[in-house]
């Protein structure tokens, strides 16, 4: 399964045989994948299939028990999400990772604040932080926002914009998007998809974790199916259409069996 984009270039980020265990239960077992610049890899799977663990590994929150991570072909070990971010891997977290009682700019730069002056007088560069935040928020379509206001005063869509703007700002190589579990409006979905495409078009490698095969098929170049922490399928856009993808994600044969039995029951009435 090798397409033109696969050959030649070194992947921006690569996982080789990554295994993560919680206690003795493997959450991921021997997962390998490659992310290339300008490509969108969609990760699909049911709840508990290891999607969130995969995101945690990529963004440095979870250290794998086995296997290795390579950034631009060089093996790396992330000790904290800060190191992953310093490597240009930024994440839009499922819960958006926003502290509601802190201001918008504090949220934007949390964990990577710009400072000026020398220790012990090193202090936050508030002016620059506010300016960058306002600019980044304007790029994702939220204009006229006061960066000093509390994040809890933002509307749900604006909060999502904040999480995305932050990831786009810090992600120089790889953008990881774990689609929020909270119900989204079509506009909010569109924002997520647009951010995926904007990142792809500017050359970033994008990993998009989603529950929805329909949306995945709209933007994805490759599709990685996870089941019980294993790679259950690695497909390209040419391999599947949206209906095949839906069937595969929903458990394939099980769903068609369910559909058949429901249809029968319906006709009997």
């Amino acid at each position: 399964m090798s397409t033109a984009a696969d050959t030649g270039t070194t992947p921006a980020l690569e996982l080789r045989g990554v295994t993560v265990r919680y206690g003795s239960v493997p959450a991921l077992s021997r997962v390998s994948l490659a992310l290339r610049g300008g490509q969108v890899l969609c990760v699909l799977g049911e709840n508990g299939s290891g999607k969130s663990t995969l995101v945690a590994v990529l963004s440095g929150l979870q250290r794998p028990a086995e296997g290795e991570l390579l950034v631009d072909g060089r093996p790396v070990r992330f000790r904290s999400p800060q190191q992953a971010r310093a490597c240009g891997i930024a994440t839009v977290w499922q819960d958006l990772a926003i502290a509601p009682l802190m201001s918008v700019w504090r949220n934007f730069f949390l964990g990577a604040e710009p400072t000026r002056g020398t220790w012990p007088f090193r202090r936050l560069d508030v002016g620059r932080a506010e300016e960058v935040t306002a600019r980044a928020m304007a790029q994702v379509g939220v204009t006229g926002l006061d960066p000093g206001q509390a994040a809890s005063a933002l509307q749900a869509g604006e909060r999502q914009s904040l999480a995305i703007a932050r990831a786009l700002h810090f992600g120089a190589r790889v953008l990881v998007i774990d689609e929020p579990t909270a119900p989204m409006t079509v506009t909010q979905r569109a924002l997520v998809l647009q951010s995926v495409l904007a990142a792809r078009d500017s050359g970033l490698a994008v990993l998009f974790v989603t529950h929805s095969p329909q949306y995945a098929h709209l933007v994805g170049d490759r599709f990685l199916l996870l089941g019980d922490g294993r790679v259950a399928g690695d497909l390209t856009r040419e391999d599947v259409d949206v209906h095949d993808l839906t069937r595969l994600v929903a458990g394939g044969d099980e769903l068609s069996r369910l559909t058949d039995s429901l249809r029968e029951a319906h006709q009997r009435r």
Partner: protein
Amino acid sequence: MTAPIEEASLSSSRRPTVLPVAPERLPAFGPAVPVVPRSPGRRLLDRVLARPGASALFGLLVVGLFFGLQSPGLLSSGGLATVLDVAAPLGIGAVAVGMLLVAGQFDLSIGVVAVTTSLVTALLVSELGLGIWPALLVSLAAALLIGAVNGLLVVSTGLPSFLVTLATFLVLQGSSLAVASAVAGSSRVTGLAGSSGWDSALAVFGATAQLGDGRFRISLVWWLLATALTTWLLWRTRFGNSVFASGGAGQAARELGVPVARTTVLLFLGTATAGWLIGTLGLVRLGGVQVDPALGAEIEFIVVAVIGGCLLTGGYGSTVGAALGALLYAVAREGILLAGWDPRWFQAFLGLLLLVALLANGLVRSRLRTAPRS
């Protein structure tokens, strides 16, 4: 299923591969919905209410006015000196505890750390004949050790800090009473005034200044310094950002790589240092130490910080507010004394004040939390 974007435009083949990308070059996208500005009056109200210390300042003005009218002696320079004398040690503890509360943790052991460390200092001087300065350094190290034990226990076990520091409180309380009576023969150690270096220690921790008929103590300066330092740390440094995030949104803080554990341990070191400072100020002032069991004093620091607008659940508060809370406490206590009321009313009054502060905090919190759903 209605796709929000045309599929044709999505599968465009234009894919430049330039790395790394400056975020400025990303095209603007997303729903261009300008934020609807609020009315100026509403905005001002929001801003005022968003200040954690606002309710404490308001309460201070009301209580100060009330007792100022009841007993005019309160506002003379003598009355003011007494109020500030009561407020200073309490305020030093309250700003440290306030910062810890913002990070979502408790410390019940600060008062007993004050007693224990000053006992250590006193015994080192009276029994071993050490100079006051080396003895103070040793007791500071002991305080930091206690803080580190508290912090590391909380961080590594995930137990509620309320219980961990309650245990510390009991251990230190019991052992300092036992050690004092075993070594010194009573719960009281005195006679430090002649030790080497006492004069310089007196200048740093015990100096006073006469203004009118009021004698102002240097503890006031330490209190102001502590408030200024913690305020700067909290609002203007990366450490302060970590404090807010650790308390208000632990999961988000971990996801973004904020050093939650390190921040928590550092804050416990801070409260222990504040305890040592309170103890030292008392020690130098009295020329000795009296080990005096009182659990009530432990709660007072937290009560004062909460009156100052710190949320018990963390993520919100200010040390200026905590300092104002300490001042409010002192004004009410001295006001009741000077007005000639039964001083036992003070506790009831403090409870009432706490209740009002909690309700006010809840109001602020709900205002901050309420976000219109799209």
